[in-house]
């Protein structure tokens, strides 16, 4: 079994229900996110549109975070999930530096690395991840990539020409796919980040959770 995620960006309406569900389910501290929805505004008024892109750990088959972790705190589960053992983590932040998707953060409460685990604890009880359950339009599709009859496998088959991953050039082989994505939504270098253009305050920097 190799679990994977697919987000149909045609369906996502940016409600952030997945974000909130993730926060509640995993007790993610303030100022940190395991999953967030990025908004990018495209075009010039009046020809404008807004894109919504849920971003989370990509659970790469060739995960740089797992490779760089000196104590195997980041490790693969048999079902393909890249999991984290916070009790073992020494907080070197190597994984934060290695992840090309910016999906790992230092938890300010535990001073250890943390990230999306595809709700491994729920999956172990045969439940869907919290974000999948919360999505009102079923834009999040989760399942076994090894099973050709699973929803995610069928979705990938049907939308073959439109299935993308983030930063494929990094060679990480993400188990997280997007349908309906474009350069603007998936490539961070394709959009500007201008102070004052953020919906809820300035897009600026946060001090890393910790002692620095």
């Amino acid at each position, binding site marked *: 079994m190799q679990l994977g995620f697919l987000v149909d960006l045609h369906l996502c309406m940016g409600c952030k229900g997945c974000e909130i569900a993730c926060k509640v389910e995993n007790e993610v501290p303030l100022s940190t996110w395991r999953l967030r929805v990025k908004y990018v505004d495209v075009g010039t008024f009046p020809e404008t549109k807004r894109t919504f892109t849920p971003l989370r750990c990509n659970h790469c088959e060739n995960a740089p975070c797992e490779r760089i972790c000196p104590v195997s705190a980041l490790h693969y589960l048999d079902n393909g999930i890249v999991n984290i053992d916070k009790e073992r983590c020494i907080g070197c932040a190597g994984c934060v530096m290695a992840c090309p*998707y910016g999906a790992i953060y230092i938890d300010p409460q535990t001073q250890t690395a943390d990230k999306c685990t595809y709700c491994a604890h729920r999956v172990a009880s045969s439940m869907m991840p919290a974000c999948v359950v919360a999505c009102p339009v079923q834009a999040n599709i989760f399942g076994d990539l090894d099973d050709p009859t699973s929803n995610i496998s069928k979705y990938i088959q049907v939308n073959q020409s439109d299935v993308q991953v983030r930063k494929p050039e990094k060679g990480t082989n993400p188990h997280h796919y997007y349908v309906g994505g474009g350069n603007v939504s998936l490539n961070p270098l394709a959009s500007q*980040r201008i102070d004052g253009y953020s919906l809820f305050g300035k897009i600026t920097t946060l001090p890393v959770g910790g002692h620095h």
Partner: protein
Amino acid sequence: MAAHEILAATNAVVTLDVAIPGIVWPWLVTVNMWAKSIGTGIIFMLFMLQRTHPDSVKNMRLTTAIVAFVFINIFLLFTLADLHQPFRMWHIFVYPHWTSAIAVGSFMASAFLGLLAFLILLAWQKKDDTFDKVLLWTTLLAIPVTLYTAALMAQCTARELWQMPTESAQMMLAALLAGSAFMILVGGNKLSYEAKKSLGVVLGLSALMAFIIYMSEYVFGPMKAEEVAAVMEYIKGDGEYRIMFWLGQWIAYLLPMLFILLSRSSKSESILKLAAVLALVGLAIVKHVWLIIPQLLPMS
């Protein structure tokens, strides 16, 4: 930021995302790399001088071993200080993950420190023959100890700027530069002028090679990768890192090269020492800029 890739027709602006997570590896890591360069580099220099100027360095064994021991301890101290959970450092030795450069490096650095302590003991007891035999193995181990930080940076898939062949060359050159500079400074009257001249050659050539590599990256790096181009904007555009980058290049490489040439023509040890001091100060600036700029780029 990264505006070079944005087409006017697209005019895409991020209007909601999480904040960029600040600097993850801060100045503590700069000090870590700088101290390690001195700690391993001075061992390289002792090894070299033993073969080229054996009479000159016979009184340098204890001093060199102590300097290396102190700086490797500084390196380890700052490595520890940079951990968010420093009291779990022992996990590396109990649960090592051998694909990680951090784990491999920790074992090598610990072994290196042990050998340095042994060298101090041997030098103290004036067992010169044994010292020289152990120094050979210490020098060999100093090579991977120098290089493992480059491997660690190369394992950071997110930071395209840090490529392994380049970083390994830069780490080795930094060690040669810092080692020769520090040996010039601590050599005092114990080292002959000829030995110091040799150290000056190592310092000058290391500076030249490192400068060439940085300039090559500066000019050609952006032609190969979009991400490198975006990172380079932090030193090509306006801002503090542009100033720091060029300040570092001048202080670490260009001025020391110039002063070494002057010291050779005027046979002035003072100018040579000035070159050494500048190289050590500049190296810290250069390393810091190169450490920080890839961390300024948004990953999402």
